[in-house]
């Protein structure tokens, strides 16, 4: 909905954003090409998880926090497991690490396929949504659904279920999948790898607005490989830090117009920062498999990428990487080790982080001597990206104020979807204002 003010000013307001996870609204006011106000309003009912976790046992966060999000439960499970194990001074085996990475590949495939095909591609191909797009491009939509299904299957086999996996526990898993079980999904993943390469070719042909942003990028970087399930924090200005420093380096600030906290790095001294595929890729493109690197190069990506609209290309490259990694792990799998290591409770504070499909997800827990949670902190990727999303909108509306209002509004919604925001993960506050138009 748009309003034109008598004094020549305009208000762009979208009461319920479509094709994003959760419920949010966008409010932009501008006048004579000058933006006077930009607010991404997040009004999905607030989440009480951090308070809810206090008083629970140290073994419970993977199951409880997986419920925060239907689209990235594995991210919550992995970040919480690392954090609890850190607090208890426990390391898991290489085989458990590999299985965590494999499960996480399933979530990346599922989430990226959904976003690329059903949520984001319609913006580039000029459709209101996937349903309209499917009428003209059925094979494209079928490919997206097939990819998503391959991710679902991988999550079912490793995690026990595709939506909220039940096989994850602090210290590892309840049971290891057998070689036969994993081999059985190999053909689906081979097909998914082919579909992913086709996805890169498809999205590389889209038209992208000329738009680059200078944000500090923040992502994980593991000892080897592309960041998925673990790593230390790195940034483009070299302000890297171990995960256990996140609570002092990243500060969460409440802003009045949103139920989600906004995050700042080093008190805002480094300007805005953002997380997600562009940050991961820019900081770790040297870590991609040769196959994914070649696909990226063929799609016209350099070593880094600063155009948020091209995030769909990076997601497609990450689909290739996730399928390739899943096949690599399955091929090396023996499943002979213990499914978990003991994690005896002890008093302490622990930190964990992993790369959710939409960016780094941090968890922190304080335990007492009996393992009862005294304090919990969850910093989801969408909270970290919200200031960048608003800054993108501010810059775009300023640059494209000559577009007609319908086109401008569409481009703003498209710009929000560049970040694949998971609004349901990001909300924290009780003072809820419901605004619908």
């Amino acid at each position, binding site marked *: 909905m748009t309003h034109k003010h008598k004094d020549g000013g305009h208000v762009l307001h979208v009461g319920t954003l479509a094709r994003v*996870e959760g419920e949010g609204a966008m409010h932009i006011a501008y006048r004579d090409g000058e933006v006077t106000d930009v607010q991404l309003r997040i009004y999905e009912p607030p989440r009480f998880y951090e308070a809810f976790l206090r008083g629970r046992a140290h073994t419970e966060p993977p199951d409880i926090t997986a419920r925060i999000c239907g689209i990235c439960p594995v991210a919550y499970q992995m970040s919480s497991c690392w954090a609890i194990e850190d607090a208890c001074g426990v390391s898991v085996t290489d085989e458990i690490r590999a299985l965590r990475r494999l499960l996480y590949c399933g979530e990346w495939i599922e989430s990226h396929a*959904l976003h690329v095909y059903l949520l984001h591609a319609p913006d580039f191909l000029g459709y209101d949504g996937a349903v309209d797009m*499917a009428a003209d491009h059925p094979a494209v*939509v079928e490919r997206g659904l097939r990819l998503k299904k391959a991710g679902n299957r991988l999550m079912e086999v490793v995690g026990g279920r595709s*939506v909220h996996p039940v096989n994850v526990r602090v210290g590892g898993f309840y049971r290891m999948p057998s070689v036969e079980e994993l081999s059985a999904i190999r053909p689906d993943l081979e097909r998914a790898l082919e579909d992913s390469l086709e996805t890169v070719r498809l999205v590389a042909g889209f038209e992208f607005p000329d738009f680059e942003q200078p944000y500090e990028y923040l992502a994980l970087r593991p000892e080897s490989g592309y960041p998925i399930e673990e790593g230390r924090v790195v940034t483009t200005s070299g302000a890297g830090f171990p995960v256990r420093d996140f609570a002092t380096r990243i500060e969460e600030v409440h802003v009045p117009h949103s139920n989600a906290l906004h995050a700042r790095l080093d008190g805002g001294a480094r300007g805005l920062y953002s997380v997600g595929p562009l940050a991961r890729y820019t900081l770790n493109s040297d870590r991609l498999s040769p196959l994914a690197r070649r696909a990226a190069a063929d799609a016209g990506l350099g070593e880094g990428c600063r155009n948020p609209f091209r995030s769909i290309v990076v997601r497609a490259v990450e689909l290739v990487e996730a399928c390739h990694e899943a096949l690599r792990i399955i091929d090396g799998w023996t499943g002979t080790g213990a499914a978990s290591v003991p994690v005896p409770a002890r008093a302490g504070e622990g930190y964990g982080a992993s790369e959710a499909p939409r960016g780094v997800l941090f968890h922190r827990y304080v335990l007492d001597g009996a393992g009862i949670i005294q304090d919990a902190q969850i910093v989801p990727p969408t909270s970290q990206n919200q200031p960048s999303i608003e800054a993108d909108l501010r810059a775009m509306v300023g640059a494209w104020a000559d577009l007609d209002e319908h086109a401008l509004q569409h481009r703003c919604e498209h710009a929000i979807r560049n970040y694949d925001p998971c609004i349901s993960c990001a909300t924290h506050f009780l003072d809820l204002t419901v605004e619908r138009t």
Partner: protein
Amino acid sequence: MTGGPLVVGPLVIGLGSPDRGDDAVGPAVARSVASRLPGVAVVDHEDPTSLLDLWAGHDPVVVVDAVRSGAPAGTVHWLETGPAAAPVSTRAWRHSGHGGTHAVGLAEMVELGRALGRLPARLVVVGIEAEGFDHGAPLTPRVAAAVPVAAARVCDAVTAARREESSDVPR
């Protein structure tokens, strides 16, 4: 359908998250149907995007979900559709649950199925008007009271469809 999957009978799908208050009403109705009608495949599911695979080969298919349209809580909405029926409004029939992939709701998946030629011959969408989605909360009383009502109606519809089938193909 030539080369298509064999039709394997009726399927009832309950959509929704089991621990988000009234969002659990779909699975609750599906379980109630399962207890009354042995031999009918019944699944609980939280993710609407897998519907096209779930219902492949089944006929008739009933999908039960929590909805919010402004009607009194516990109201049972009933919509029969299929390949030849008019499109379902994706605005009017918006999935209101929070546990699943709410960026792509039930109505979108029905219409995606139509666009891709993957709708069951007979599809019934049952919406139960919900009012609360709190974490860990049980069904609210009016929604809980609607479960047996909706389940009985689903059972009647499935039984009638089976009867129709057996009269079409006399043994």
